[in-house]
Structure formats: structure tokens, C-alpha cells
């Protein structure tokens, strides 16, 4: 072949390749859903009696993110002396509470003043901590690490320890597309993992889905929770019920309204609750309604763990509670109480035990995976 012909063929090839590279960008397919930038999208199975899960657009589920979050949740290097992890005070066998302790003890031996909250179905919540001071799970997760009476570590130190472990940077790369670890990514990974902690297979769930017939005692307990309290002869609308439904609605599976209430524990407050955050008089003594799910596993009860048993809790509500300027309007029988009989109290206990979900507690996906 002549040299001139070779040159002409080369020219033709270059022009063709050049033109091919100049195709319109607008031909590219446009994704219709927001997919994670990195990692493998993970579809979390939502129980049929639950609503759709609100997932932050900037922290979608990925297989790698949830996996990473699980390691981080149980990693004690997030604490100042490498002895405590999130899982230390939120253990799966007790529905992610602190082993029956009234208060948790931090790495310096200092006792807190609030009971460790159960971590159940938090994806649907809109405020976190007993006083509701954080509005997203990602924000909430940042706090305990630096809290001096809890894990007492500075985030730069914690991140430095994770960065130095050769196992972690590849996991962050897989989950978030970077090997550079920071507190935001740690919080996002843990939040992904915590959002997968869905309890939705208790006896009550199966009853709601129509696959289980409750015992008579359980059925009566269910009814009591959805009846107004009080003597109908004294107050219009009274139904001699237990009046639980205002703050612990059954619908949607959460068994909490997720809102802040003063449930009449005290007339004067040693812990201001939400009032300590907002400073507003109307918030004094108000605390987040905890879920009733797995409540039989999460003693003691209330923000300060003052009640050891479910019977004590029911006795409190039966008493009507202590009046105060901020007691919730739902607590309407501070004089006279609900006057529940012993039988009714037992029926309520039976109902509360229906909410135990051992599939949740024993789920292998929620257990400590060991070192990364």
C-alpha cells in the first residue's frame, strides 16, 4: 500500500472517530429516581402494616452503607478510651436499651440522668432524644460520641482511629466513594444501619395483618388502649378505658405519636425535658413519647427509669398523674384517676406483651459483626 493511501485512511479514521465522539449528550438516559452515587442500592422490606419510610435524599440505603454502619455501631473506638460503642448502651437482646440499667454509665464512670432509649423503627421519627432536641437521625448520632458523660471522645480523634485501621477506608470507598473518613460519613453510615432496625413481626403485628387471633385477654387489652378513660357519668365521652391511644396510636406500626408530652410524672421538674432545650414555659417537663414496641424487654421505664415494671407504669396512668402547668391535656383525670380494675390492668399487660418481637431482637443482621 502506498504511503499516500495510508495517510488518507488515517485521516478518514480520525475524522470518523472524532465525529462519533461528538454525539449529542442529550441522548444519555436520565435516571428517574435518585440513586445513591456510590454503592449498591438496598431496598429495605417494610412490613405491610407500616407506611412508606421517609429516607433522606442525601443518605439513601446501600448494601455497603448499612454494612459499614453496622461495624461502626459496634466499634468501641468511637469512645475516648476505646471501651464503649453505640451498642454498649443499646444492646439488641434488650431491644437496643441498656441491659435494664436505670441510667447508663459513660467511659469515665459518670452516670447519666436519662434512661437509654430503645432503638426501634426510628426511621419514621421526626425528633430524637428524650427531649427531642435533634430532628434527624444523622444529627442525633453525632452527639453521644462527644458527650463527656457518655463516649467522651472528640470526633477528629475518633475519625483518626478509624482512618488508621486499614479495614475502614475501603469500606468508606465502597459506601461513599471516598477513603477519607469524616464524622458526617460515619453518622450517615450508622443512620443507614439504624434505619434498618425495623420491628414489625410481633403478635400484635400479625393480628393487625390478620394472621393471628389474639387471646381473649389480649383482645380486651387492645380494646382498652383505644377507649377513652373516665366515668361516663362524670365526663361526657368517658368510656372507662385506659386512654392510651392518644400518644401510642396503633396505626402505622410505630406505637408512638413521636411527639413531646408531659405525662404527669411530677408536679415540679428536676429534669426540664424539652423545656431545657427551648426554654419555653410550655415545654417544661415534656418528653418524647417512647414506642411501646418490645416494651416488655426495655425496663425500667420513663425518661428517668423510675418505674421498674409494667405494672408500675400502668398504676401511674391509672392514678391520673400529678397536675402541673404543662401536664398534657390528654392526662385529664389527675383527680380520681382512670379507676382501672385489676382485671383491666392484667389485660393491658397482656396487650403490652403482644408487642414483643423476638425476630427483631434476634435478627442476625443487627448483631455485633466483630472487627471490620
Amino acid at each position, binding site marked *: 500500500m502506498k504511503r499516500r493511501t495510508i495517510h488518507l485512511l488515517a485521516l478518514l479514521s480520525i475524522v470518523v472517530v472524532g465525529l462519533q465522539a461528538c454525539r449529542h449528550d442529550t441522548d444519555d438516559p436520565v435516571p428517574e429516581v435518585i440513586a445513591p452515587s456510590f454503592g449498591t442500592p438496598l431496598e429495605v422490606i417494610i412490613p405491610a402494616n407500616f407506611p412508606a419510610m421517609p429516607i433522606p435524599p442525601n443518605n439513601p440505603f446501600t448494601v455497603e452503607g448499612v454494612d459499614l454502619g453496622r461495624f461502626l455501631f459496634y466499634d468501641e473506638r468511637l469512645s475516648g478510651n476505646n471501651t464503649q460503642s453505640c451498642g454498649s448502651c443499646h444492646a439488641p437482646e434488650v431491644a437496643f436499651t441498656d441491659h435494664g440499667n436505670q441510667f447508663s454509665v459513660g467511659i469515665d464512670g459518670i452516670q447519666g440522668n436519662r434512661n437509654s432509649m430503645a432503638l426501634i423503627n426510628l426511621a419514621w421519627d421526626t425528633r430524637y432524644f428524650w427531649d427531642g432536641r435533634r430532628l434527624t437521625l444523622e444529627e442525633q448520632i453525632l452527639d453521644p460520641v462527644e458527650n463527656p458523660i457518655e463516649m467522651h471522645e472528640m470526633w477528629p480523634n475518633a475519625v483518626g482511629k478509624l482512618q488508621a485501621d486499614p479495614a475502614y477506608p475501603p469500606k468508606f470507598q465502597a459506601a461513599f466513594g471516598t477513603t477519607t473518613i469524616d464524622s458526617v460519613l460515619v453518622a450517615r453510615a450508622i443512620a443507614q444501619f439504624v434505619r434498618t432496625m425495623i420491628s414489625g413481626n410481633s403478635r400484635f403485628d400479625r393480628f393487625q395483618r390478620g394472621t393471628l387471633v389474639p387471646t381473649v385477654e389480649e383482645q380486651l387489652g387492645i380494646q382498652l388502649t383505644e377507649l377513652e378513660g373516665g366515668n361516663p357519668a362524670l365526663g*361526657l365521652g368517658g368510656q372507662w378505658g385506659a386512654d392510651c391511644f392518644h400518644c401510642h396510636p396503633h*396505626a402505622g*406500626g410505630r406505637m408512638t*405519636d413521636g411527639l413531646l408530652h408531659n405525662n404527669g410524672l411530677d408536679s415540679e421538674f428536676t429534669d426540664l425535658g424539652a423545656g431545657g432545650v427551648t426554654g419555653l414555659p410550655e415545654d417544661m417537663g415534656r418528653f418524647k413519647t417512647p414506642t411501646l414496641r418490645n416494651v416488655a424487654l426495655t425496663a425500667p421505664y420513663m425518661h428517668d427509669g423510675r418505674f421498674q415494671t409494667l405494672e408500675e407504669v400502668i398504676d401511674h396512668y391509672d392514678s391520673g398523674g400529678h397536675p402541673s402547668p404543662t401536664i398534657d391535656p390528654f392526662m385529664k383525670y389527675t383527680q380520681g384517676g382512670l379507676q382501672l380494675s385489676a382485671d383491666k390492668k392484667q389485660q393491658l399487660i397482656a396487650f403490652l406483651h403482644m408487642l414483643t418481637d423476638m425476630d427483631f431482637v434476634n435478627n442476625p443482621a443487627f448483631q455485633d459483626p466483630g472487627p471490620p
Partner: protein
Amino acid sequence: MHIDPRLLLPVALTLALLGCRPDEEVEPEPTPVTTGTLRVVVVPKWEGGPFTMNAEYVNVSNYRIKVEALKFYWGDVHLLNGTSSTLVKDVELFNLQSGSAEATWTVSPGTWSGMHLGLGVPQAMNDADPINYPPGHPLDLANGTYWSWATAYRFLLFDGRYDLDGSGTGALLQPFSMHTGLNDVYREFDLDFGGDVTVSAGNTTTLTIHMAVDKLFYSATDTLDLALENQSHGTNMPLALELTDNAIHSFSLE
């Protein structure tokens, strides 16, 4: 003409690279804007003046009261123009916890003289399974407005506390908690704008509606006496209907 073949390669490369300049931005044909926005702001008032949640007031019965929660649904909101009527929103939740509450609706351009709407959740939506409403929807369970026992929504929530002594100074300890709901309590009503309100394509028109909180305690013919009536949770139908009627008459255009 003889062309030196050694020149062909650089010329070809230049041509190819020049051909790869970014595509010219083709201005898409502008989509004509055919809708406008109606921004509805509900402002709570007390006897025509400002109203603040958790502040003390003296009501028509001379009781000291303070309101701690006030939220309500509007359903099947239609804009009216003479004999024509246009549905603009199926359901909306207004929560006055922080003062005013607002909603923005996309509407067809036009001139409107009033609204026809319901206080509550229309039956079809009220009877539906609440888990089907997505996060952010007015009927999302996270709004805390669903009555599990009734498998239906509360239409209006009005909570607070009171003291029967209108001149007292102590803390208000007696609670009132009145929640309406159930399909039988759904009430339709008209809200006259008192003039024409125009929504034009591509623009936002704001409609400010006052809610006279003081009027929740009375109507032209009756007074809601907290000493006798302070709880309604679906089982006290007379009080629910009375409060509903009072609420309907509490709305007026600014």
C-alpha cells in the same frame, strides 16, 4: 495539486478536535406557563387582635384559657366564580402551633369570588388506609392526626387548659382537649372573599384568612362552656358538632 501527505495528519486532527467543541446550547422552546399559584395563609386571631399560642386570654365565659394545640384539615377546596367551581386541593392540614400556617396550591388562572370547602377529611380519603399516604402528605401518619380506634382522621384538634376564675392569677391547671372527627362531623361551608381575587399565570396570589380563635368558644346561638364541656374524642358527638360549627364561623378573609 499536490498535497504533501505529511500535512494531512495535523489537518485531520485539527478538524476532528474542532468538531468536538461542545454542542451549541439549543434553547428549548419555553413551555408556556398555564397555571398560577394561590398561597393561602391562615392567621389565628383573638377578638380581632393578635393571637399567640400558649398565651393567656379570657374567653366569652370569662374563663382564663390558653391554647396549646390547634390544627385542622380542609377538604375538597373549590374556588368559586359565579356558578363555576374548580377543585384546587383535595386535603390540606393547617397547624397553627407556631402561629400562622400556610399552603400553596397550583391553580388555573382566573378570577375567584370565594371558596367552597369542608372542615375535615373527605370521606374517601378518611376511610382509606393511612399507611398509603407518603411522607410529607397532609394525611401522613407522622402528623399525629390519625385516630387508630376509629380508623379515621381527626379533623380539628383544639387543646389547652383553663381556669374558671377569669380574674385569677395562678397557673391554669384544668385541661380541655377537643378533637373532632368521623365522617358524620365533616361539614362543608363557603368562604366569601368579599371581592374578586385574581390568579394569573406564572404569578402567586396570597390569600390571608383569619381564624378567630375566640369564636371557637361560642356561636350566635350557643356558648361552649368549658366548665361543662371540655373533652371530645369522638364519643361526645354534640360537642364535636358544636365545635365544628364554631370553627366554620371563625374563618374570614383578611
